[in-house]
């Protein structure tokens, strides 16, 4: 790292620390306080409008036996793992396809941005219409090519989760593509020249040069997607509302039902705190990889 100019060292500069006060206070009041409240109320039996009764870890003991909640956690894990993996693999293939300079490619790179800016609820309702069991266009053409989709993708328990994951993949694969393309642009050319001289095949070049060099970028993309996929709510809410049965009820939907509809605030808080721990673990990994990426660039 280049030696820092004296400017930074001047004591006078410390007055800038006041600039950190507003954001710190803001996050203290509107972020840390609600989170602390959530952790606190998780130890209470509290139904909105009623008395809060301290119950210790009882909420956590009951969630271990709450098959609906545990089921929703499993659904979340399947959703996140499958959607993110497909987005990563597909994103990599597409990034390699698009990684060249031409007018057509620029246009393609622009067009694929559209799903990422689509209001998720709108995307959900559009796909809900496309999946409609009688009138949906996707339903019609899947049947037309002879696929047996039963009463419809979103109606059959076996395919409902897949149908909402497809929407995630539609909306967010382009994000992975864009992140990976920016990584590909920054790769050095020398290793490829050497590989070409050695007559290495395209596949070998990819696995032995591109993938290792691109690893930090891939990790950032995977973690961004994992964090956001853990938050999924709008599209599933719009398309299936968690059904049929509980086949698409991810943890967020279940917690929403318990907290906002059944008004069991204390119990819902304990359920969401399990998710919080999961989020923070992935989040710490994400921030660390972001730091590494930044240091590598510097």
């Amino acid at each position, binding site marked *: 790292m280049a030696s820092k100019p004296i400017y930074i060292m001047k004591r006078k500069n410390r007055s800038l620390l006041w600039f950190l006060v507003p954001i710190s206070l803001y996050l203290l009041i509107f972020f840390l306080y609600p989170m602390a409240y959530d952790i606190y109320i998780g130890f209470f039996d509290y139904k909105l409008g009623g008395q809060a009764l301290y119950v210790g870890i009882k909420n956590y003991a009951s969630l271990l036996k709450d098959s609906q909640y545990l089921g929703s956690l499993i659904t979340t894990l399947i959703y996140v793992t499958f959607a993110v993996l497909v987005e990563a693999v597909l994103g990599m293939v597409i990034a390699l396809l698009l990684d060249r300079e031409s007018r057509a490619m620029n246009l393609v790179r622009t067009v694929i941005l559209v799903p990422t800016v689509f209001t998720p609820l709108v995307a959900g309702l*559009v796909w809900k219409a496309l999946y409609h069991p009688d009138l949906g266009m996707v339903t019609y053409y899947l049947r037309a090519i002879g696929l047996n989709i039963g009463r419809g993708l979103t109606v059959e328990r076996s395919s409902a989760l897949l149908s909402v994951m497809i929407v995630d993949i539609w909306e967010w694969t382009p994000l992975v593509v*864009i992140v990976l393309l920016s990584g590909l642009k920054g790769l050095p050319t020398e290793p490829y020249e050497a590989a070409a001289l050695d007559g290495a*095949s395209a596949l070998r070049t990819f696995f032995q040069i591109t993938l290792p060099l691109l690893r930090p970028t891939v990790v950032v993309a995977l973690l961004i997607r994992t964090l956001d996929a853990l938050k999924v709510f709008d599209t599933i809410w719009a398309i299936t509302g968690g059904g049929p049965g509980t086949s698409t009820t991810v943890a967020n939907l279940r917690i929403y039902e318990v907290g906002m509809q059944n008004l069991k605030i204390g119990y819902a808080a304990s359920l969401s705190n399990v998710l919080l721990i999961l989020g923070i673990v*992935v989040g710490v990994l994400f921030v660390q990889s972001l730091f590494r990426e930044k240091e590598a660039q510097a």
Partner: protein
Amino acid sequence: MTGIASGGPLSRAVRGSLRTVAIVILMCFVLFPVLWLLTTSISARINMFKIPPVLFSRPTAENFAYIFRQMPVLMWTRNSLIISAGTMLLSLVIGVPAGYAFSRVRFAGKRALLMGILLTRAVPTIVIIMPFRIIMKGFGILGTQLAVILIDTVYNAAFTFWLLSGTFESIPLDIEEAAWIDGCTPVQTFYRIAIPLSKPGLVTAALFAFIFSWNDFLFAMSLTSPNSATLPIGMLSTYGILQQGWTYMAAMGIVAIVPVVILSLLLQKYYVSGLTFGGVK
């Protein structure tokens, strides 16, 4: 970079046409729902019940006329605008100076603070929404646009902060030192020198705060009342009239997405930079 293009058994021409086919399939998958929304919004209701389904038909404006006549679309749009603009302003006001201080001062616990701020992105939205509702009720602002602005800003201020601290770091220190020697205080240096030099970062941060709030559904659903409802909330209510086809819903969808699609395409460079978390400068 054309790593994958060298060597291999396939001839160049075959490979080229395979690539074209793959890209065309990709474009169809990406654009089909967008095209469907567009054509459905200007299609007569009756077309929705045709089998096989039709994608193109004679265009009509009746769906837009209907939703603007029968639903408070203008109010929803106004609320969406207020919430998005409010979030944008508040995020910049608290995030930008903080990003500057962060890039210019060394202090104990710096990394821990950064970690803490960035972790806001990791906290599942569902965790914060219920306590936040209760707190807003205590403040007496549950059901107002302000409540949504306050929570959207939690998620955006952190991003603004990160993005801008990166932007400020890339400004050469000599420029600011010169200003400082000329007698500017650090705060003056900030708004006279650093701010004007950081336009790309500022545009990206503003754009993302706006899009985030515009697209939000869960927070708006949990914190607004019918009078402060945003476009996504309004759109959900149009699906209730499914029996009449989806054309009204599609028209609502167009109203909801056109502003952000246009903004992101006009400011594409900044949008891409934000998508990659500041990775593309």
